[in-house]
């Protein structure tokens, strides 16, 4: 089985192959040639002289696409680097990630876009696409030079982590971004309503004595941005949607045919604020883990299409950052390495979501949202593929985490379904550290 590795031409045979575009999973074989998908045949075995990877019992899909990742480089290399972040991505089945602009310096100049692109070419274990900042220094006041940023390679625009409070600035940003063919990704929360908030506002915040962020803060902001998308006709993508009320607003916008898309994180889908009674700082995220009902509505929304895709909001913070009092800890958890396993375990195994639908939500659909390549099983496309053992049970151990930061509440958890590795342009990247 080693034989096909590092070969320019080989077959992957006998896997259950998922084609996200047609939403079909069939036994098939894929020929990889010079880094591209050269042939797809719907048969278990192939007669060939070429090396063959017998993938019987595995699932083969296009590599996942994460349109919401924080790689932290430049500026916060103690938390994550392009090398460690993309290694984590590859280990989680991702072959493309879109990194956010809240680095230091902020991605608001072409030179920063070029720097990240160059670093990714040198050390990246997956493709790195870049969301540049919507406004100068993420300050929410002056829109950036979208033409220059796009020319340098940026694929989207976002002030992620911050809401653009000034509606006139947001209107201008949408109008101008639309003209340049870039989707605006908005982090929606009313800045005043969430001031100093630590967790979701509800019974748990009352019980724990932590300042709550009301669901309304997110919904007010989403409503404004939907109205601005309607006013400008420019595409708007809403990041990390977390409340039931937000889903209502997005459904209505879509029914009207507005250019609005939305993502949800694995943690908002599978966890709720009741877990916070231990004051675990790794459960502190923004937007916060909401109530039980919210996560149930989010699940409905990924099933019926109100939500377009799953995105991790992989947000590395090292132990020193998180080994503090709850209200002093920065929000965020890592997610690239666990997204598939967590969702497969929590949703697919119990029958709440179809495996093919999960794969669609992690491949073609995020790619469509940002109008980027990847996430599709097509002849002639780069052989960016993920190989999954859907039945393998494994435990997330801290030393197995490739991300430089280990801020996840999932350490010690048993998952069903494991990424064995990815092919990036046909080149194998094993997901499993110990076995190499």
């Amino acid at each position, binding site marked *: 089985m080693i034989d096909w590795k590092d070969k320019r031409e080989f077959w992957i045979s006998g896997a259950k192959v998922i084609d996200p575009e047609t939403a079909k999973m069939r036994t098939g074989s894929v020929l990889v040639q010079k880094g591209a998908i050269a042939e797809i045949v719907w048969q278990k075995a192939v007669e060939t002289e070429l090396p063959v990877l017998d993938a019987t019992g595995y699932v083969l899909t296009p590599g996942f696409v994460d349109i919401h990742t924080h790689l932290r480089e430049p500026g916060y290399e103690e938390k994550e680097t392009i090398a460690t972040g993309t290694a984590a991505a590859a280990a989680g089945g991702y072959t493309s990630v879109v990194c956010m602009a809240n680095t230091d310096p902020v991605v608001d100049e072409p030179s920063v876009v070029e720097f990240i692109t160059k670093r990714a070419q040198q050390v990246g274990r997956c493709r790195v696409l870049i969301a540049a900042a919507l406004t100068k220094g993420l300050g929410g006041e002056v829109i950036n030079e979208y033409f220059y940023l796009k020319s340098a390679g940026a694929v989207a625009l976002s002030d992620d982590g911050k809401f653009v409070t000034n509606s006139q600035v947001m209107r201008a940003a949408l109008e101008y971004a639309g003209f340049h063919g870039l989707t605006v990704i908005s982090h929606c929360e009313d800045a005043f309503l969430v001031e100093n908030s*630590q967790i979701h*506002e*509800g*019974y748990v*915040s*009352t*019980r*724990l*004595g*932590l*300042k*709550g962020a009301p669901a309304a803060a997110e919904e007010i902001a989403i409503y404004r941005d939907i109205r601005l998308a309607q006013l400008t006709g420019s595409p708007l993508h809403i990041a990390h949607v977390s409340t039931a009320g937000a889903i209502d607003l997005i459904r209505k916008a879509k029914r009207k045919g507005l250019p609005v898309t939305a993502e949800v994180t694995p943690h908002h889908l599978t966890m709720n604020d009741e877990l916070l009674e*231990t*004051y675990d700082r790794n459960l502190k995220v923004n937007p916060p883990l909401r109530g039980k009902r919210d996560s149930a509505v989010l699940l409905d929304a990924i099933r019926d299409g109100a939500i377009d895709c799953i995105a991790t909001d992989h947000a590395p913070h090292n132990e020193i950052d998180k*080994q*503090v*009092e*709850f*209200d*002093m800890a920065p929000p965020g958890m890592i997610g690239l390495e666990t997204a598939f396993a967590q969702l497969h375990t929590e949703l697919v195994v119990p029958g709440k979501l179809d495996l093919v639908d999960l794969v669609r939500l992690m491949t073609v659909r995020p790619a469509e949202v940002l109008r980027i390549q990847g996430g599709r099983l097509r002849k002639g496309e780069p052989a960016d593929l993920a190989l999954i053992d859907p039945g393998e049970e494994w435990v997330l151990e801290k030393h197995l985490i490739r991300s430089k930061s280990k801020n996840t509440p999932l350490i010690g958890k048993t998952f069903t379904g494991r990424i064995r590795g990815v092919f990036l342009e046909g080149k194998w990247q094993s997901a499993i550290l110990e076995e190499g």
Partner: protein
Amino acid sequence: MVQFNRKNLLGLEELTAEEIELILDTADSFKEISERPIKKVPALRGVTIANLFYEPSTRTRMSFELAEKRLSADTVNFSKATSAVVKGESLRDTAENIQAMKVDVVVMRHSSSGAHRFLSEFLDASIVNAGDGQHEHPTQALLDMMTLRQRWGGFEGKRVTIIGDIMHSRVARSNIWGLTKMGAEVTVCGPTTMMPPMIEQLGEGGITVEYDIRRAIAEADAINILRIQLERQKSRLFPSLQEYFDVYGVTLDVLEAAPREGIVMHPGPMNRGVEIAQEVADGDRAVILEQVTNGVAVRMAVLFLIAGGKTEGDEPAS
């Protein structure tokens, strides 16, 4: 006989009614020590206690110190202003350093909710919560309950109304947990802007929320008046102190609405003329100084139950 097997006292939510009863019984028996000419017993001889106060405090800090000294513990004090914290040392480092000096008990007040829980993740020393953010202040609630029990004998069927800024109050939360576990009925009352969501579900079996102060105290056997933090006005939670006093201040006139035998409590420090009128604070219904006296006994009981018995009878090996 109920045992107190806890290493820490983090809050009243986690205690059983039997454990609360045991603390109050122990406190009753310790109260007498403070009446003696020589106010000292050797119960915690050889036990070292560090008092970490990350927030300013007069009453609670002195009360803990007196409790420790009357039990013959060795004590060290730490306050934020005069410590390495101002040099940027983290809570974890500070606590681990103190532990490295072989401290048995850490009494801490901290402005972050859950700070004690966080500390308990890595400290071997016992931790006693002297107030964490807006979460719990267990010894305050215990001393309130001790004061009530001395009057009432028990809590079954008794009604306590807590008035003020419920949202930001750790005193309210600890009282809600403690009182409801012991069978008392709790009503909370305060401005809508300072009433946290779903507060009615808090406590054993829930509590009542009432916004009209006269209705809230109509059947109260005790009224616990919370201090209004003056900085809340800056965060626009109420428009003026004058209006607060006129709507939620407890005056003799307001007290007319309460049963004659209803007593008045305040955890201190008081803002006279804001949440409590001068005449009420000094009136014969007030048991505010009794609460302070009981505070020492309650803290002696907590420290004894957590740290006592370990060194009893042991003479240092020479």
